[in-house]
């Protein structure tokens, strides 16, 4: 089914209804920046379980930030069954749950993480990367030697649903980003069956110069307006 040209503006509750138990879910953001806080809050309230989460980090929950921020809430609430991430060092609980085996967390190099998602969205069968060769990361992974250099063979990564965050959209779902909020969002937009973008503002069609569009609206299924989560307001 084609995505509508004019994107429906939906509530965060409707957005998270796309996530069922055992859904694979990709969430954009890097550290504080570019995370869809409003949708994540709604997902916490919905209490959906057994999520297979794909998110580059586990956000903050540590001595300096003694409350869970963003996706850290999903992990603390026990809503996550597995996670593919690159860095969970700012979330003590995630490290604890990973160590005791409650959540299966696969930690992969960040450049590999983004290229696997890119491959997933770009119709590639995988990627070859020198990153991680001759380290413990190579253990159990397939490698190939090509023109005298060894590479790890990495599979593409896709998800059932993706929640991303942008600065502004137009009604056709074209997105622009602000500062370091861009991060993984444009790539994640390409690699899921359903893609919902949380945005600060929705402008009339024609308001964004086509030269400045970062994520074209063709990738987007629906838009959610940013709510009043304090981190949403600061990012």
């Amino acid at each position, binding site marked *: 089914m084609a995505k509508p040209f004019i994107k429906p503006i939906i509530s965060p509750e409707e957005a998270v209804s796309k996530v069922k138990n055992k859904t694979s879910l990709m969430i954009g953001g890097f550290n*504080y*920046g570019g995370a869809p806080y409003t949708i994540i809050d709604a997902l916490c309230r919905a209490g959906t379980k057994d999520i297979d989460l794909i998110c580059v980090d586990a956000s903050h929950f540590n001595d300096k930030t003694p409350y869970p921020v963003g996706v850290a809430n999903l992990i603390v609430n026990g809503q996550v069954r597995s996670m593919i991430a690159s860095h969970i060092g700012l979330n003590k609980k995630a490290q604890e749950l990973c160590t005791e085996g409650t959540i299966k967390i696969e930690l992969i*190099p960040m450049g590999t993480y983004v290229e696997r998602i890119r491959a997933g969205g770009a119709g590639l069968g995988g990627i070859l990367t020198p990153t991680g*060769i001759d380290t413990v990361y190579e253990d159990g992974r397939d490698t190939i030697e090509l023109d005298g250099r060894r590479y790890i063979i990495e599979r593409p990564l896709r998800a059932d649903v993706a929640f991303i965050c942008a600065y502004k959209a137009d009604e056709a779902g074209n997105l622009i980003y602000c500062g*370091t909020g861009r991060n993984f969002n444009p790539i994640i937009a390409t690699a899921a069956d359903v893609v919902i973008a949380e945005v600060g503002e929705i402008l009339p069609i024609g308001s964004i110069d086509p030269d400045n569009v970062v994520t074209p609206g063709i990738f987007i299924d629906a838009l959610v307006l940013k709510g009043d989560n304090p981190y949403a307001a600061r990012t």
Partner: protein
Amino acid sequence: MLPELSENDARTRIAKRIADELEDGALVNLGIGIPQLIPDFISGGRRIILQTENGVISAGPAKDRNDLRIIDAGGSPISVLPGGAFISSDLSFAIMRGGHVDATVLGALEVDQEGSLANWMIPNVRIPGMGGAMDIVTGAKKVYIATRHFSKNGSCKLVRKCTLPLTGRGVVDVIVTEYCVIRNDSGRMTITETAENVDVEDLLKSTPMELDVSKKICRMKF
């Protein structure tokens, strides 16, 4: 005996020495800890371009401590300097892995005589994940290690062979500690500079890493 230095003096010395070596216009990626002191010591009208892996080219100091729209990879507010750019993560890592970063400066848990680096995990103690560490050592043109010579428990960080899980094998080009500068000279770790009041024999005795001594060894300037 190697001279004792305060934590602050040691860190400043290391940062200054590396700052001195970075070329005007170089694209530089800094790790956390001592490397973050380096921008304060770039002198002589040089400008280095700092990349943060979360998507800033030409990062500068924060303007508003409460504004999280521009942050570094650790989550601290920063700014983008005139002439800079915001980029997505695929491009940021293409830059790092693809050989576009002129120099990276990283901390170390261990670094060994083959130039291998361990700086991302301690099994059963800390499992933060490697983040961008493996990508940057794979692709940067020059890898500098900025580290205290000894860890807090007194063991030397410059070892014969790393025992901790590696970030990268044979990737280190230059090691700067508070006592010396060591360069990877065609696979041989070679002392090229020593700090004031540091005797080469003392240094060799207290450093498990097998070291050559450069014929042109000189005093470390900082």
